[in-house]
């Protein structure tokens, strides 16, 4: 295996990991605030179609990414309205959001099937690109890959060191106590849900603009669900997301490089690997009930109503 091949493999791993990191980071913040939003897959698809559509029409990828964030945010607010203000069951509503997102994105994207846009440009960072081995690798990264890593670090710092992070963690443990102190629990949860929606939308746009610049119905292929599993795998701490996402990225990319390794496995079975890996990873983390009890936000999934 030569260096170029390794670089190419690592670069595609980073590409595959990025949408997972983006979506999972957003969902992690939502869950730390006590809200379980299973609609990540739907929001990603909506973001993907919005990003692609706007980029296609306007020619600007930046505009497309912004549109994707907005689109994800808007559909997440439907979820927010139902669960935060109307007290609906969070699991059912999240499923509804996914199904709605699948339908809405297919509907909005019907004219874009078969079209193409220019992929996101690679980012040549001055100086860094000249380093041996690392340089050519980094040269293959586009801006979103860097952005996703920065976001994880930012969210981690935010949760641990800032006042906002403290408040989010408090709400996630006990919205009633936070409300009794006087914090606007519902409003803050809306904000977190919106953030999660924007991140999921962005993740989807990276799929349709960065990884595979095109639009296909259902193109996220379960990545939204994998992002949900990633949050559990990382035990709700942002640091764990990077490891998990790159692991999954690597497994996902294997299916393309499988032939390169000379493995006589049918491509469908290689394609199964990310899904099977998700199951394995979940089993490993959830096996010991203490892990979950110690780390899961206590109010996760429960409706809260201020009297």
């Amino acid at each position, binding site marked *: 295996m030569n260096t170029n091949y390794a670089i190419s493999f690592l670069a595609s791993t980073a590409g595959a990991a990025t949408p997972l990191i983006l979506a999972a980071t957003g969902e992690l913040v939502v869950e730390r605030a006590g809200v379980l939003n*299973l609609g990540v897959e739907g929001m990603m698809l909506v973001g993907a179609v919005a990003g692609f559509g706007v980029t296609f029409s306007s020619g600007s990828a930046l505009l497309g990414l912004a549109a994707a964030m907005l689109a994800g945010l808007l559909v997440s607010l*439907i979820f927010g309205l*139902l669960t935060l*203000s*109307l*007290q*609906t*069951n969070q*699991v*059912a*509503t999240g*499923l*509804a*959001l996914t*199904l*709605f*997102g*699948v*339908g*809405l994105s*297919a*509907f909005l*994207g*019907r004219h874009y099937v078969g079209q193409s846009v220019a992929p996101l440009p690679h980012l040549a960072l001055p100086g860094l690109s000249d380093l041996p081995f690392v340089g050519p690798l980094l040269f293959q990264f586009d801006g979103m890959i860097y952005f996703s890593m920065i976001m994880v670090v930012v969210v981690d710092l935010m949760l641990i060191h800032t006042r906002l992070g403290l408040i989010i963690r408090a709400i996630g443990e006990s919205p009633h106590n936070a409300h009794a102190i006087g914090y606007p629990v519902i409003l803050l949860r809306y904000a977190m849900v919106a953030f999660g929606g924007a991140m999921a939308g962005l993740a989807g746009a990276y799929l349709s603009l960065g990884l595979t610049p095109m639009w296909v*119905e259902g193109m996220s*292929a*379960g990545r939204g*669900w994998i992002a*949900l*599993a990633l949050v*559990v795998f990382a035990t709700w701490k942002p640091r764990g997301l990077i490891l998990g996402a790159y692991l999954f990225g690597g497994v996902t990319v294997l299916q393309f490089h499988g032939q390169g390794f000379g493995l006589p496995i*049918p491509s*469908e*079975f290689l*394609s*199964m690997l990310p*899904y*099977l890996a*998700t*199951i394995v990873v*979940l*089993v490993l983390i*959830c*096996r010991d*009930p203490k892990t*979950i009890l110690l780390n899961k936000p206590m109010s996760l999934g429960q409706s809260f*109503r201020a009297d």
Partner: protein
Amino acid sequence: MSRFEARPIPSRRMMLGSPLIAACAMLLTSTILFYALGQQPLHAFYVYFIEPAMTTYGIGELLLKATPLTLCGVGLAIGFRANVFNIGADGQLTMGAIAGACVALYFQDAQGYWVLGLMLLAGIAAGMLWAAIPALLRTRFNTSEILVSLMLVYVAYLILSYLVHGPLRDPNGFNFPQSRMFNDHAILPLLMDGLRTNVALLFALVAVAAAWFFCSRTFAGYRMKVSGMAPAAAAYAGFSDNANIWLALMISGGLAGLAGVGEVAGPIGQLQASVSPGYGFAAIIVAYVGRLQPIGVLLASLLMSLLYIGGESAQIELQLPSAITGLFQGLLLFYLLAADFFIHYRLKPKFTNLTPLTPVALVTPPMSPLP
């Protein structure tokens, strides 16, 4: 929402009414959407929602599509009542179809309807096996059955893809990813000439009746109901959480597998690259819109079926995009969840007669006053 207050007792009227309200809201939204797409709203409404039910053939198609929805929906509803969320019904359906197809193709030269019987059993078994994985992982390893069953959907799709592109591909099929057509003895008998509706409909109706009986008259159904409503009470009563999880997943998995066999031994007649337009997922909506009651699930599947068929005819007649169906389905569930709010909450009424508080238990003064 300080204009609303919690009801002391959930409203029975709203429990029946919320699906109707949701359906009406969806119909209203769809009409607006038709208009926005440049259609004549009322005509489009007629083509989409009314026309399919106007002919005998149309009703046959409705019942045909409602069959897998009912089978899956009934199973899912039983599980949802116990807070067991089998999201992977489409995967179990796919595995059921594969198993049934394998039997059909293996015994393709055989005569006699026992082949069909074996296919049905194989389909149910395959569905149950595929659902056993999330059941095992949840009971042994505490993993979420939502995520596991869902991952297995993608795995099932890929297995199907592998089979129809490879081992099970029809050698005389011009390289299309599909198997040989099944023989007559491997196809479900039709109910009426001229209609595609087959015996599977009867299975669905039996499933509805059996589910109703299970939920309302059996102790197992009671245990699952209590587990979903009040898990602490179920533990207090000594109901086994694990037993409920297995039961829920086995029932819904088996029914989904049956639905899968029903598809390939029915309207499809062979194994293809896709055997389900997402029935397993649409069944989630059907279960909720049916308020998790078997009869409700049947009615909701008819509505959902109408959405599928209406979408097809609207595409042909009005050139409306087929993707509209998925949009309507998602909207229907959103509206239902929103309407359910009024089961538990109501507008704050004006105050009329109020009862003063009854004094609550006093801890009597200590026997001896302190020095």
